[in-house]
């Protein structure tokens, strides 16, 4: 297999990597907000249940979570998840939503009390303070931590090879084992570097565009 053929194969595999990446973000960013709201809830039972949930998700390897989502339903209820991609997506979305929720929570906790009070004395209700004062500032505050986490997500998609999704690493491994050449595996690094390079440029731009004010 020559260089061009391997490149085409890996590019083809990239659509799974990228698909998993974007769909995970699409779900995990808003879902993280829900989890964040639950873990900051004043309703104690909800808060504690969320705390246990966060502990479980952060306390077990993502690879294990993928396996559990993929095989679990079949073993427990006899209704296996047929689509590997869907199983991986569910595991990724939950895992990343939990991590995002903790980043959001950190951002919200870092907001000075004075901002809430200023909103209050100007006659805003709690929802208005959150929407107009708190969330816009939190968005800026969490950007560096979020870009870090999102960059990690690109590389974590390779964990999906554990249930045989044809993403970049899986594809390279199968080339390695069928064609008896080792270099495609190393070559995958270039694909990740390019994707993360693009992301880095994007986040730099995003952070810069939020730089019109300093907190």
């Amino acid at each position, binding site marked *: 297999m020559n260089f061009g053929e391997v490149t085409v194969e890996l590019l083809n595999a990239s659509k799974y990597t990228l698909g998993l990446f974007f769909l995970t973000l699409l779900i995990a960013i808003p879902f993280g907000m829900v989890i964040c709201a639950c873990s900051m809830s004043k309703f104690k039972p909800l808060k504690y249940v969320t705390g246990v949930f966060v502990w479980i998700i952060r306390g077990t390897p993502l690879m294990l979570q993928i396996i559990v989502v993929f095989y679990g339903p079949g073993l427990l209820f006899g209704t296996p998840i047929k689509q590997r991609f869907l199983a991986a997506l569910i595991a990724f979305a939950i895992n990343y939503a939990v991590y995002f929720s903790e980043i959001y929570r950190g951002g919200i906790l870092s907001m000075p009390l*004075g901002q809430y009070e200023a909103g209050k004395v*100007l*006659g*805003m209700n709690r929802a208005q303070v959150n929407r*107009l004062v708190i969330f816009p500032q939190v968005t800026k505050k969490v950007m560096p931590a979020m870009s870090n986490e999102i960059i990690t997500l690109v590389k974590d998609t390779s964990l999906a090879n554990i249930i045989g999704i044809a993403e970049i690493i899986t594809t390279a491994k199968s080339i390695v084992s069928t064609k008896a050449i080792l270099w495609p595996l190393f070559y995958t690094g270039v694909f990740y570097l390019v994707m993360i390079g693009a992301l880095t440029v994007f986040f730099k731009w995003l952070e810069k565009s939020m730089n019109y*004010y*300093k907190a």
Partner: protein
Amino acid sequence: MAFYSVKNVYKNFGSNRVLKGIDFELEEGQVLAIIGSSGSGKTTLLRCINFLEIPDKAEIYLNDENIFSIDNIESVAERKVESEDTTSDIAPLSNSEENSIGMVDVKSKKKKREKKEKINTVKLSKEKQKQIAEQRLKFGMVFQSFNLFPHFNVFKNVTLAAYLKCQKTVAKDLMKKTYEDIEKRAKEILKRVGLGDKLRAYPCELSGGQQQRVAIARALILQPEILCFDEPTSALDPELTREVLKVIKDLKKDGHTMIVVTHEMEFARKVADKVIFMANGIIEEQGSPEEVFGNPKSEKTKAFLQESEKVIDEV
């Protein structure tokens, strides 16, 4: 009856009695200066006036109307007996708490905080909350640390509250006109505080004095009956202090009623119509600046005034 009168204000934080029966009156257009050492309850009193803290007991009248009454002092006391061991002192969210129990390990701090929350938050009825939301707008508030919204420019900082208010009260077809009025008024107010050329600047681009003047403009846009200042110049150097105090003086000329918690004795002496000296949660002395500064009756007042002069002498 006086334009604004406050009767029997009590406020406890846990077992710490911060305000122990405050009464005072204020006429329209007057400036009231509240002085006193740290921890005497000045700021808490101002925050009660603004309903940032809900007093345990109080009667508040504005323009002959009882705008707020509450008497929870007994239920607060009862709760305290239930949980005798919570000896800590300050409100769950107040700044000084960090200092007061900073040494305690995190776990017991958290426990304490939770317990304290229980005894401090006497649940307000929906009605009371609604009442507070309505009455609060009659009191403008300027904070020691400005608390501008850093992500909005000066103009948006000033107009935001007025926009939100008219969205609630003004009919849709009049909105455009109202918005224009607000913009016009915001520009006038900003000119009045000397910032007519800074409309598009962000707070981070301004000096402390300019930021505080924006904060004053922001409070003025809602046309409060009484404008409250919580140590408005404590975070500023003397030059910036001067420009902020000048604005407050100008506002007095415009006929604004103001309550100023301050450490600027000279300012209190010259600008205020009435001075209150607080110590240990009560009003130790009140009267005209001439009376309080010139001929203090209470020993504590004398000691405090001497102390504050000594500082200047020693430096």
